[in-house]
């Protein structure tokens, strides 16, 4: 058990927890805004996982400065790729959330309600 209790795994586990919580919220809440919030939680969970995956024990952020010097950097740095990816992921999450919010607004304008069960015009 304790061989799993590394910093990285804790990060990952936290991320997973958030993901599951987010999904649960998204699947159970009836209020559209709450659903959106749940999905943002879901997204941040994802992002945490990504960042945690980048972590390497006892290494520094991949930025060259006087402390790091220029030689065999690959021994000193954590993985820059997931950090790059997470930025993209965050921005995408932001975009999607924005769109969802806009949709929510529109739906509210149409029906004066935010209960997801009231939007079943199309079914079967």
């Amino acid at each position: 058990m304790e061989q799993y209790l590394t910093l990285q795994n804790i990060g990952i586990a936290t991320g997973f927890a958030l993901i599951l919580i987010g999904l649960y919220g998204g699947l159970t809440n009836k209020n559209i805004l709450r659903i959106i919030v749940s999905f943002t939680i879901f997204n941040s969970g994802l992002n945490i996982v990504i960042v945690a995956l980048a972590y390497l024990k006892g290494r520094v952020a991949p930025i060259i400065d006087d402390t790091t010097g220029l030689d065999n950097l690959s021994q000193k740095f954590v993985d820059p790729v997931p950090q790059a990816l997470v930025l993209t992921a965050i921005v995408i999450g932001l975009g999607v959330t924005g769109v969802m919010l806009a949709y929510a607004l529109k739906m509210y304008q149409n029906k004066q309600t935010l209960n997801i069960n009231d939007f079943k015009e199309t079914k079967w």
Partner: protein
Amino acid sequence: MVNPVHIVSIGLAAAFLMSLAGKRQQNILAYFLMIAVGAMSFISLQWLMEIYSGGAGREVFTAGFKPPFAINLRMTMDEAVLTSIINIFGLFSIIYLFDTFKKANNHLLSIFIIYLMGLNVMVMTRDLFNLFVFLEIVAIATAGMMIMSSDKKGISAGFKFLIASSVISGLLLLGTLFGYTYTGTLNIDMMQALPLIKGGAVALFLIVVALVLETKPFPANGWALDLYTSANHGVGAMLSVLSAPAIMFVVYKMLPVIPQDWQLVISFFGIITFAASNYLAIRQENIRRMLGYSSVAQGGLLLATVGLADYLGGSFYFVALGFLLTNLFAKAGLFWLGGIVNSDNMNKWGILRKKPVLLLLFGIFAAALAGLPPFPAFFAKWELVMQLGAGEGWGWIAIMLIGSLFEIAFLFKWVGRVFKAENEENAPANFAMHKQIPALLLGAGIIAASYFFIDYLNFNLTFVLIPLLAIAAFFVIDYAPAFIKNILLIGALSFYGYMIYPELQGDIMKLVFAGIFLIGGVLTLFPGFSAKGARKGFYPFAAMTIFGLLMLVNPADNLTFFMGWELMALGSFILILRGKMAEKPAFRYMLFSAGGAYVMMAAFAMLNNISGAEFFGNINIPANTAGIIFALLAIAFMLKAAAIGLHIWLPGAYAEAEDDATPLVSGVLINSGVLGLVLLVTSFGPQTLFGYDILHIMGWIGAITAIGGNMLAIYEEDMKRLIAYSSVGAMGYIIFALAINTKLGLLIALYYTILHFIYKTMLFISAAGVMHRTKTRNMYEMGGLIKSMPLSFIVVLIGIITLAGMPPLAGFAGKWMFYNAIILKEWYIQGAMIFFSGIVAFLYLYKLISSVFLGQLKDNHRKVKEAPFYYIIPQLILVMAIMVLSVQPQWLMQPLSTIIPASFAGEALQWDGNLATLSTGYWNAFTIMSVVMAMFGILFLWLVYHSRKAQKVKQFNIVFAAEKPFRPETTHVSYNIFAAYKKALGWMVTPLATRFWERLSDIFTAIADKFRTWYTGNGQTYALHLLIYAFILYIAISGGKLL
């Protein structure tokens, strides 16, 4: 060559710049958009040309670093094809949506072009994370385009879509990231190791499940359905035609990483999606949603094909392209026609009939989508089924064919409505040119595609290509007046006969059927001369029917045969549909023919493993080796020959068809089933199934069919239905004769086929003549017509004497041979049944002739004249034929005897001049004829002479017991004339078969109705479906064990 990356740069630059535009530039923006997309299309097209002409593809390294260090785009054949499709179709969509775009907010235009750009990158990129990014772009752009739909439904549908896609993309992102951590790369081509690494399988599963969910698999596709239902037609078309194939291609890209057995699972889920979605579609009233279901189904088919890519090997591209192009042209076409009709209510679609071109387009799209020849999906489906058969994937084939049947069901229900729905004036149709032209382009596209497929399969020129061309030609000249087209068609048929005669010369069997189809075709066309106007839409399909039949005569392989079969079915379907009240019967007919066709297809798939593609008529299957194939084919053919139980489509179809089309679809067309059965029996010989001798069963079916058909005919008051039922009876004889399976039996079958063709065509034509004059089909509204139409009367008289098999006319020969064959075969009971049915035939024949021609003339028929000249000619020709046969039957029978294979058991008919002998009996047509004629003539002349002074009795100076000529039917003496008989034997005609089939269809639709409530319309539930589906897929892939 322009760098493919510029598709992206152009798209983005255009998008960004367009957002600059203010109100003033608004009107030119649409053109700007068109130019930009045009440039993108140019790039992809130019690559397509380059690579097609043997040039190399191109790897684009963004940022100039080799993968995996930077993202690379690939442009090879696949990508070139797909990107070209995407961009060009995008261009068409702009034209189609032009009015929308003219008014639209500039942001919408940017979103549109970004959507296209995103799809392009999805296709080209080789980087997993990049794929994720552009999937998201496409998703958000789709959400953006949703507001093009005017109705508010679009908004909530878009939201559901957003929920679903964010769940899916979350899974994909997780999978990608873990994939990276395990393999240390994001480049798809370098990830092959992923499933092998410990834990990598989970990462791969997450990726796969995300991608599969993106393909909108059943049942986790509610969000997609709602999207289709509420999206603007143009957008719906793009979703169905661009997004789906793009994501399919992504799956295809991932295949090298996905293990073999996973691929099979995915593909199987695809097939399930195909069948289930088509199934649920049959209950749809809302057209757009129906199209949604159908799109999902097509997606499933594509997914299945992609999943089988490795298995299909060489023929993968053929199959995939077939489905892809069909989906592209036909589905988009239907969506766009939907936009033109601009209503989701099936009944409003009658408006299409205002524009024959659009109507034709609609037909083409529907047929193409349904996988009917000569469109690509037909060949693709055939190839796929054959390949599956080679792998013994019977379950797959079954599911797929059932799915296809459902597809036919809802598509042709729709076609029926379009042709028949009363032409709604208040339909909100919008026939704007910029909407019609793209649709026309799609039509041209599907035709071109079909051309390439047919060209690729290099069919036989004389027996396939020329007929196809002829059919096409008649579509082209459909504007000409009917008279011209009639002459042309008759001429074409005659010339075609002259052309193929040398090819068939040696083979009398083929000659016989070719003769039936050709002569029958020509003769049944004659009445058409008396038709007025252009008679639009008749001749193309008449040509399709006849040439389809002719394709059956001398096919090189099973595919050709099947193609002819389907063509004939399609053509006759439309001919039937042209009748006034024909919607339901025609639909029923289509369903039954399709069912039969798919059974046949399955049988061919099995046959393929035994004897290859070789036409089954030209091979010899050793006895008792292929029972199941034999049974399946027998069912398929007996369905066309309307064996009892499978016959319920026939009366309606024949009765409701246009009067002068009926002879063609009945007298001539029904022989296709006979042809099949004859070939079957000759090339298979006796076969057993589960130890039962199938031929023996067929014998019983034949006997029962004979009795049943005739019994049903007795109680008919409708002239055409009566004759139609009598066809069922005649088919019973033929099936029985074939089942006897001796030299004599086969001879009888062939003789009967020809005879039945002659007298049935004759009867139907003269019935058509009568109905043409009396304007009714109910016999109780006729009577006493012998005075006004003597010729028709004589024809009918001869017809029924022949049919009844009474000496001295040709029919007796058949009966006589029957009893001998029965004695020789020792099938006494069946024999008695056959005889009984022959006797029963007298009853309805008497009813037919007496209540139409004899009895009291009706008031409203006092002025009717003899049937038109063009109706009489073919009848007289046929009467001649019968007379000749009656006197000299050996002229026909001796040639027929030569084609009976020596392998057949039993003794052959011996001829000595006119005397036919068997060990059991003999008969001399000529003597009988002369004796009878002598007696007859003498007596008749004497009688006439004897009462030469007799004066004609006026109609009214005889007793009327109860009957007044102009009273309603119940007072017509021959109404329900055999009531007593019905009282005694009515139980024989309880419509069990009809009830059975109707109950079956009710059950099916009811279940479909229940199941589709699964799509509650609640976005959250849909999201839940995604997770459930993921779980199921996991179980399926991990083979049941959870971890």
